[in-house]
């Protein structure tokens, strides 16, 4: 069949099982857009900014487990993707970015809207391709999808020159045959002997702790994790991207570790005699000071990426490979043990600190973000998808919105990208249209990509938006309070009336100022047909606790000053 390069792009997307793409047209990708109508099985979502398209594809990928796709034109269209590409890269999310490039004859001559996208994105993609020949489009896209989803997943960019999009191939056929990549071998396996060494450490350990990360979700190893945990009575601490690997209410799920992790989790890490790191990468936000990190523990690290082993934390045993496969091999060898001293000890630590929890604060007329988020959790089902923006609300969401099922929690962990919340929620909704989807955003981050409200309205899909409005760039304000003498430089933020903003988009807006209004507002949002923005006017100067200051020892946590604080101001 006769096909243009632009048609081949869509042909390939269809073959890869793509159902939805997020994008924005322009001069250089016009041929691709022109060819789109021939491929009605793929739904195109027109975003309001290419960053939005990137985050939508990212959110879609994280929730669906498939490869997300975003399209942009050359030059500014492509550069607008950069934040989204870097976000997906840091969190190992499989997304294929298709950008258009100026015609091949013009590349290198500073043509109108020419930007060196393959150059720019080398450090923030798993791989990228510059395609200047129509015959290279299919091989590049096939490899791009394969690379994006295999091994440690990640974003791949395919930059296609306009003349290659326009060129025709007379007798084009899709090539289903296996292809060759000499330098790419994503499927490594550990030596059987090191598996046995790891099992030995596990079976002899009195105080083991599993550190469960995003890799478990990526590798679909949730069941293996559950069985190992229960068989050995090994408690599980999770990373922020690991929420959902084990039900939050599972007796062995301790909760989140790290800078804003639970105190008992961080303490358990410091007291453990064995850390089993599964698909996590010892980010500085979870380890604190490396010199004092879990010094008494032997460490076993399982990851599909060999460069993660011994990168931040030196380990005793590193197993490289697919977690599901490796945990499957460990499983039968892990002895059944009750380890009751250890689990009792952790339960005791937990009991001690939970009395400080803001949850135990009676309704004193103030609206705390933690209450809002905890209520949101209480009034939504376990099938609800939660995406977050970045800042204090993100940490409160991680602490107070308990996730029981995999792929229901979407947050920018590695890059901490403000503006991620709303677009990732839109992407998530396309991944799971029947699920209730909420995004929890700060007043600052919401405004970074609030233009996507308009996308939401145009698509007519329902995503509820909980704006945790504290009138500050709250997380930065908190650091200023703790470490910069309360010098609130450039953190107070005046926002538009979010209720009116919703209204201007034809969406419902609700304002909440009292704790007593929270439930009704959530219920109303759920009952409304279209998307709803709830503006929660919360306490302005509340802080996230506990907090391990950057670079401090993990056990060295800043705690909420008093049990029943009014506001941290008077502490």
């Amino acid at each position, binding site marked *: 069949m006769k096909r243009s390069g632009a048609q081949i792009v869509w042909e390939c997307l269809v073959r890869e099982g793509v159902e939805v793409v997020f994008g924005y047209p322009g001069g250089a990708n016009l041929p691709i857009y022109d060819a789109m109508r021939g491929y009605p099985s793929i739904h195109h979502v027109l975003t309001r900014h290419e960053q939005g398209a990137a985050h939508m594809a990212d959110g879609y990928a994280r929730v669906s487990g498939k490869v997300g796709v975003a399209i942009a034109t050359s030059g500014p269209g492509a550069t607008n993707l950069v934040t989204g590409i870097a976000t997906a890269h840091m969190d190992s999310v499989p997304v294929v970015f298709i950008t258009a490039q100026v015609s091949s004859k013009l590349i290198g001559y500073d043509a109108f809207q020419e930007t060196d996208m*393959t*150059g720019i994105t*080398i*450090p923030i993609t*798993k*791989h990228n391709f*510059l395609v200047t020949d129509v015959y290279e489009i299919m091989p590049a896209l*096939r490899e791009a999808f*394969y*690379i994006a*989803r*295999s091994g440690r997943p990640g974003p791949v960019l395919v930059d296609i020159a306009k003349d290659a999009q326009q060129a025709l191939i007379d007798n084009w056929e899709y090539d289903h045959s*296996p*292809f*060759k*990549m*000499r*330098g*790419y*071998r994503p499927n490594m396996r550990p030596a059987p002997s090191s598996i046995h060494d790891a099992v030995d450490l596990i079976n002899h350990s009195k105080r083991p702790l599993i550190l469960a990360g995003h890799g478990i979700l990526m590798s679909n190893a949730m069941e293996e994790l559950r069985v190992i945990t229960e068989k050995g009575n090994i408690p599980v601490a999770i990373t922020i991207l690991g929420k959902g690997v084990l039900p939050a209410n599972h007796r062995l799920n301790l909760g989140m570790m790290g800078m804003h992790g639970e105190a008992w989790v961080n303490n358990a890490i410091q007291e453990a005699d064995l850390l089993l790191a599964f698909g996590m990468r010892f980010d500085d936000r979870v380890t604190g000071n490396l010199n004092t990190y879990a010094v008494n523990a032997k460490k076993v690290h399982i990851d599909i*990426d*060999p*460069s993660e*082993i*011994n*990168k931040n934390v030196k380990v005793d045993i590193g197993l490289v490979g697919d977690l599901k496969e490796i945990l499957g091999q460990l499983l039968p060898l892990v002895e059944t043990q009750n380890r009751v001293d250890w689990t009792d000890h952790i339960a005791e630590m937990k009991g001690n600190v939970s009395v400080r929890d803001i949850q135990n604060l009676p309704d004193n007329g103030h609206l705390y973000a933690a209450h809002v988020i905890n209520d949101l959790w209480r009034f939504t089902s376990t099938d609800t998808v939660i995406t977050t923006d970045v800042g204090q609300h993100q940490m409160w969401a991680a602490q107070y919105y308990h996730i029981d099922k995999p792929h229901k929690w979407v947050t920018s962990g590695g890059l901490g990208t403000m503006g991620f919340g709303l677009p990732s929620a839109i992407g998530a909704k396309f991944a799971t249209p029947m699920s209730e989807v909420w995004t929890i955003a700060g007043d600052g981050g919401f405004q970074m990509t609030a233009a996507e409200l308009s996308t939401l309205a145009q698509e007519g899909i329902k995503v509820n938006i909980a704006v945790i409005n504290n009138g500050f760039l709250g997380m930065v304000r908190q650091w200023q309070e703790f470490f910069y003498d309360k010098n609130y430089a450039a953190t107070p933020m005046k926002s538009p009336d979010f209720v009116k903003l919703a209204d201007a988009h034809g969406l419902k807006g609700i304002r909440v100022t009292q704790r007593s209004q929270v439930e009704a507002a959530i219920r109303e949002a759920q009952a409304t047909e279209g998307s709803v923005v709830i503006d929660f006017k919360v306490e302005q100067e509340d802080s996230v606790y506990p907090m391990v200051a950057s670079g401090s020892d993990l056990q060295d946590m800043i705690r909420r000053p008093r049990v029943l604080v009014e506001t941290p101001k008077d502490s």
Partner: protein
Amino acid sequence: MLHTLVILVEDLPGVLNRVASLFRRRTFNIESLTVGHTDVDGISRMTVTVEGDDHHIDRLTHYLYKLVNIIQIEDLTYKQVVKRDLALIKVSTVSDKRSEIFQMVEVFRARIIDVTNQSVIVEITGDIEKIDGFVEVLKPLGIIEMVRTGSVAMERGPDSLFHAENGYQELTQSMN
């Protein structure tokens, strides 16, 4: 310490950029880097000398393997190798040191490959120390210009560096 890495890469546009970009963003310093074709179509060979302890170089190797176009990496630091640098040195012959220059060329087993009535170009190959030594003796005699290639290295003995599974034999990857 200084490590010598041999990196086999797919001979594609932009691969050098990917490698160089990786060294920079992972904060490794390249002392020298050379690239050239191999006897195998489509495979180029880089020799990189880079400063770092064994742990650092281990990390670097893992990072390099993440690049999709990299086929194989070998650290030759602890192996029996021959390592060669090549230099072209243009030396002025207008002074009265002309015979001294010719004598040094003889001593260092270098070669004169271009002669004018005011200058000669000397070619020398050898390990880094030998070339450094030669440059030192030529300096007072009047170096006009110099160029060095950086090291290339190869393990001694009959074996090939290529792992069969890495390059000669094409890997077949199936879609999942």
